[in-house]
């Protein structure tokens, strides 16, 4: 766990339902051996990245004090993303030395991201949000974004 980071990243109380039941992420129940589902830390990172990508930073109005994503489950690559986002958001590389500030930035982006996803899930016909997101990603790949990294592109 990164020095200065709390044990958990926290979310807004309103986020929990989206993480669990909106269909954005697979439900936790019914795990089958050999089939891994994303843990909360991975969901949190995705929500944060989605929030940053869509410039959706939102203050937490009511923190869920139970905590959501264990920071020790954030891998080194995830930490790199967190620091990059915090740096870009504040415009100062020194931000990465201020753990508290970094946490605030990423929790707010995760809240913004998951709120946006929740809204999209509510508007899209049931069960089709994943397909929409999938198509958007494929579009990005086909438009040559990261063309060098995409074997099909």
């Amino acid at each position, binding site marked *: 766990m990164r020095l200065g980071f709390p044990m958990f990243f926290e979310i807004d109380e309103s986020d929990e339902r989206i993480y669990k039941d909106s269909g954005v992420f*697979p439900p936790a129940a019914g795990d089958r051996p050999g089939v891994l589902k994303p843990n909360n830390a991975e969901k949190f990172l995705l929500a944060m990245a989605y929030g*940053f990508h869509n410039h959706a930073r939102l203050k937490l109005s009511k923190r869920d004090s139970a905590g959501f994503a264990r920071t020790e489950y954030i891998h080194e690559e995830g930490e790199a*993303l967190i620091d*990059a986002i915090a*740096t870009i958001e504040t415009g100062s590389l020194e931000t990465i*030395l201020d753990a508290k500030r970094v946490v605030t930035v990423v929790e707010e982006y995760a809240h913004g991201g998951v709120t946006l996803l929740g809204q999209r899930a509510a508007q899209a016909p049931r069960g089709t949000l994943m397909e929409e997101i*999938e198509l958007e990603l494929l579009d990005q790949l086909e438009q040559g974004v990261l063309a060098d990294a995409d074997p*099909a592109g």
Partner: protein
Amino acid sequence: MRIERVRLRNYRQYRDVSFAYPATREHDLHLIVGDNGLGKTNLMNAMCWCLYGRERYLSEQNAGLPVAHCGREGLPADYSVSVEVGLSWSADGESMTGVFERQDGDRSVFRWIVPSATGTESYVGAEAMKHVERFIPEAMKDYFFFDGEKLQQYLFEHSGNSVRQALFFLSKVTLIETVLEHMKSLEVDLQKKAAKGDPNTEALVSQKEGISTELRTDNAELLLAEKEKETAFQERERYARIVHGHEDAVELAKKQELLESQLGPGEATERDATLVAQAAMYRVALLLYSREAVTKFNAILEEKESLRQLPPPIEASVVQRMLDDAQCICERKLPERSPERAAIEALKRQVLTNSALGDAVRPIRGGASALFMGLARDVGAWRTARNHLDTIRQFNIQRRAELREIKEALYKHDLATVREAQRKHDEFADVFVKATERIGYLKGKIEDANGDLLRKQNEIEAANSKKQIVVQLRRELDLLKRAIACLEKARHDRIQLMRRCVESDFKTTFMDLMWQKDLYKDAYLDDSYGIHVVHLSGSEALATMAEGEKQCAAVAFTLALHEVAGYPGPIVVDFPFGRTNGQMKENMAQVFLDVSRRRQVILFVLKDEYQSVAHLLDPELASKHALAGRSGETTAEVIE
């Protein structure tokens, strides 16, 4: 032997109706005409019920109704009514003239009432049943009372074995066989008597007796196996008729079961593949969404590096030493609170921050580069997972579509009934095969035993030949042997004659009935008494003939059996013209007319069905009754 009168009281739709069948004309032909539902078939049922206690031709919808007449309003719960059916018979011999009477209701009774010197004499229950056997034996009733609509079924349901049984029974071959059996046991008794006192001969006789006993058991078992085979054949055919036209449904149902059993695991696989594809997609999404941040972050780092801020160009320990020594590396003094010392202290803070940043940035740079170096692999993994998922989805979609189609196709079938019928069909087909195998085994065993029996017989005769007692018994034994041989020959001749006659009569009547006379070139009974009709082309035609033609074949065969057996019972036919029409129907009427010169014929016909042959039959009828109905009750009127 003929039926003089049928009287029905409170039997189904009949409250109190009598039908008289007088023998006043050259043709003993009687007709009952009525519309559907007025009780023609039930009149035949009443006759069967009276004689055998069972309503052989009851329709499924009537099976649940009470036998007692209840009119349109139905029977009140506390109302009991006595049902009575009486059948008056007459025959050449006085002992065959009388009335069979069956009652049900308050008391159940079955009796045979005959006139006697003192008035009447009654035989009740089992005694009365013995008399029924003299008129129309229960085992043979299907050849005397029959449903024309189902005639072709008779033809197929009655296998060679039942034809042989009917033939033997009606032609008294069964009787010859019983006498033969008695004589053979008498022969064994005489041989025993002759062997008495000689242990060797006694042993031979005992061995022969053992073989005979085993032979009897095997013969009885053979009969049972043949009966079982026949029943299995009939049941198999009956269920085949139910399944007929639904064969596809049975196959489809099997396929449905298979698809349904595959769909569960298929859907689970799809769910798993979806999760795998989603996990791969999350990773790609994470990288694409944060790509901008990482790119900008790298730009900031590069800028810092180009400004030589990262890593700091000077080590913090060098700055610290200057402060500790209060002297700059350019040897200028750094007194307390001097602007120079403040500048060096600011430099130290800057260097420390940049060092900390440098330390913190190192893993970030490593993590980010690892993340994006793996992107190509992650996109590849996602595409593979998506393709795999698509394949599974397509497969499941195809399976679901197939299932939907099957369900739609099965909708029109009564699948439960068809499945049950198919199960029963397979079950009886299995019994049929096993019984056939058992019959083959038993026949071989019986043949061997007969050989053994003959050898023992010869050994006994050789052993007994010199004994005095045998000389005394010789005459009796010889007489018995001659009688047995004579009976066996009579039996054989009778069977052969019967077969030839039935075959010839069947062929003649069948050809008479056909309107296209040159379409079939032969009709015959095979060695196993199976019925065959040969098409002009030489091929077997029975199975492919039209329904009406099959009915004609069945009528021809039944009439041939009657003629040849010389059994004088009446023939009662419901729906006699079956599905015949045109010339074939007229031919059928003509055949019944001919038969009615020699025996009583009672026909139950629909008004419409009868009209086209009325010109042939009406002038010759001995009696004609018209059925009429009102308020659930049938009445009969004699038409002059």
